[in-house]
């Protein structure tokens, strides 16, 4: 009996307190994220970056150094004299684009596979699960290396590569969620009402999958950004004439002992954004799952 009235009390309490309060750190995270998204959108317009132009006279300038043209490189310059601030802004665009696109593509594939697999079950689920097993057992970094090798360097291909290594994770999460939702009484209730599979999937099962999917997506966005950097480290990152944080971190790593800023500036940006995404994701999960807050 108490099992049923507790939610009522919770609901009443929530209704009266006007919802759970969003913690400060989530706001900070969201703010940082918004800032970087803005920088990625507007930055390259204000501080244009030419990935093929070199200014050898200005190479390896420390942050705040003055270039030959008299301007100040606030974040320093890289090993061929390009301004790191402009590089950072241009890189933000690519990095966020790659991460976002990867998660969207991987998430979409995972969503469909997971929904179908979890809702219908049976032999289809078995086959899809085994395929997932194979891919999970297969080292993902290796898969990325091989795929990047097959496809060649381009932004699209990196997105495809990373998405292929990620879809299983999304599929697993959605599958688990769909499976548990399938067993819920309200799905039975919908079936009794005469709802077809499609309607049940879309109206009843899918909505309960969004939340875990989105939480997973926030985790994966971060991991994808880091994975993109790792690909660059292995020489399979974005093309030479594109700037991404991962590529800059990777190229600049040889200078960590002397010109630390080349690698550290984008690494810090990467860490900041990934952490911000994670914080927002945590907050999101806490909001939707009151138990995890305790």
């Amino acid at each position, binding site marked *: *009996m108490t*099992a*049923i009235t507790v939610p*009522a009390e919770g*609901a009443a309490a929530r209704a009266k307190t006007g919802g759970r309060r969003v913690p400060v750190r989530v706001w900070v995270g969201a703010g940082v994220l918004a800032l970087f998204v803005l920088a990625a959108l507007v930055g390259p317009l204000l501080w244009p970056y030419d990935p093929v132009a070199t200014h050898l006279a200005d190479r390896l300038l420390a942050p705040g150094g003055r270039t030959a043209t008299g301007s100040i490189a606030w974040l320093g310059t890289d090993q061929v004299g390009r301004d790191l601030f402009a590089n950072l802004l241009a890189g933000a665009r690519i990095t966020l684009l790659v991460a976002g696109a990867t998660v969207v593509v991987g998430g979409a594939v995972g969503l469909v596979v997971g929904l179908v697999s979890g809702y219908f079950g049976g032999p289809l689920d078995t086959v899809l699960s085994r395929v997932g097993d194979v891919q999970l057992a297969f080292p993902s970094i290796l898969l990325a290396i091989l795929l990047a090798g097959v496809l060649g360097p381009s932004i699209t291909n990196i997105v495809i590569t990373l998405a292929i290594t990620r879809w299983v994770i999304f599929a697993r999460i959605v599958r688990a969620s769909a499976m548990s939702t399938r067993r819920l009484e*309200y799905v*039975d209730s919908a*079936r*009794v009402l*005469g709802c077809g599979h499609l309607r049940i999937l879309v109206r009843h099962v899918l909505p309960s999958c969004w939340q875990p999917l989105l939480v997973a997506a926030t985790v994966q966005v971060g991991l994808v950004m880091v994975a993109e950097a790792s690909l660059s480290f292995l020489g399979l990152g974005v093309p030479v004439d594109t700037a991404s944080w991962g590529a800059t971190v990777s190229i600049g790593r040889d200078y960590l002992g002397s010109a630390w800023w080349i690698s550290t500036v984008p690494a810090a940006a990467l860490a900041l954004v990934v952490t911000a995404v994670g914080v927002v994701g945590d907050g999101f999960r806490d909001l939707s799952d009151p138990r995890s807050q305790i």
Partner: protein
Amino acid sequence: MNTAQASVPEAGTALLRIRGLRAGYATRGRSGFGRRRVDAVAGVDLTVHAGQTLCVVGESGCGKSTLARSVVGLLDPFAGSISFGDVDLSAAGRRERHRVARDLQMVFQDPYTSLNPRMRVADVIAEGWHVHRGVLPAGEHAAEVDRLLSLVELDSSYAGRRLHELSGGQCQRVSIARALALRPKLIVCDEAVSALDVSVRAQVLNLLMDLQQELGVAYLFISHDLDVVRHIADEVAVMYLGTIVEHGTAAQVFQNPRHPYTRALLSAAPSIHDRPGGTNESALTGEVPSPAAPPSGCRFRTRCPIAADVCAADVPELRVRGDADHAAACHFAGENPATGS
């Protein structure tokens, strides 16, 4: 709901007919290989008459929920037939079942889990009209939702609320309104009031009874609560371990129980008229055996105070003993007249 009124069958005609129903779940065999059927419902015959309430009462694990789920098509029976009106559901195609779904609705035990918590009340109620096109033109949805809300004694302002803002009793009303939206002839209520507090439970029970009077809807009412059953039932079927052990009108079963299990149930059920140290001491020993390994002969014999050798050997038939329509499945039902509770 005037149009619906017209289509309601004459009270008393058979609406739902269950014959020889066997249903349950499959389990992995002990060796891990193969699957074994477990009959949670092991051969049940029941008939629900239009405009009437048939209560199925029994303890957990007796198969009453399996019965309910089979009736509404959530579970495919292993054997037997279920027919609704003139449609044999076990033989019906998808299209026909879909059509029957309009006349055959269900209210679940826990309104919080049986209604999608993400939906608004109006959407929950109106969902049936989207699934069964042609029942109600889209333009009339809002008005009909209001009407249904008032029918279940909820203010029309609830239409825009989300379910998690409602209390248990209010949710269960929404659940009933949703079932009523398609103007069904039969509503299966699976422990529909068990999760509610006493004061609220009385409200919902009243509502169900009022609706039956107004709309002529029939109930297949599944419950473990004898007080509730006694209160609402026209007919009562007592289930034990997948079979019906006693069946009759409410008055017959409660005032003149013929099966030892029914008697035990009645004496075990607490009542506000009990007092400490009172003589309620025919309480059963032991617990319900697993449906995967039911006892031979009479399924109740392992806990039965009057079991004899014949009970282990022969399965007692459910047949009329004495009063008309009052049937019991006990070898000794005839010679052991009831003493009342």
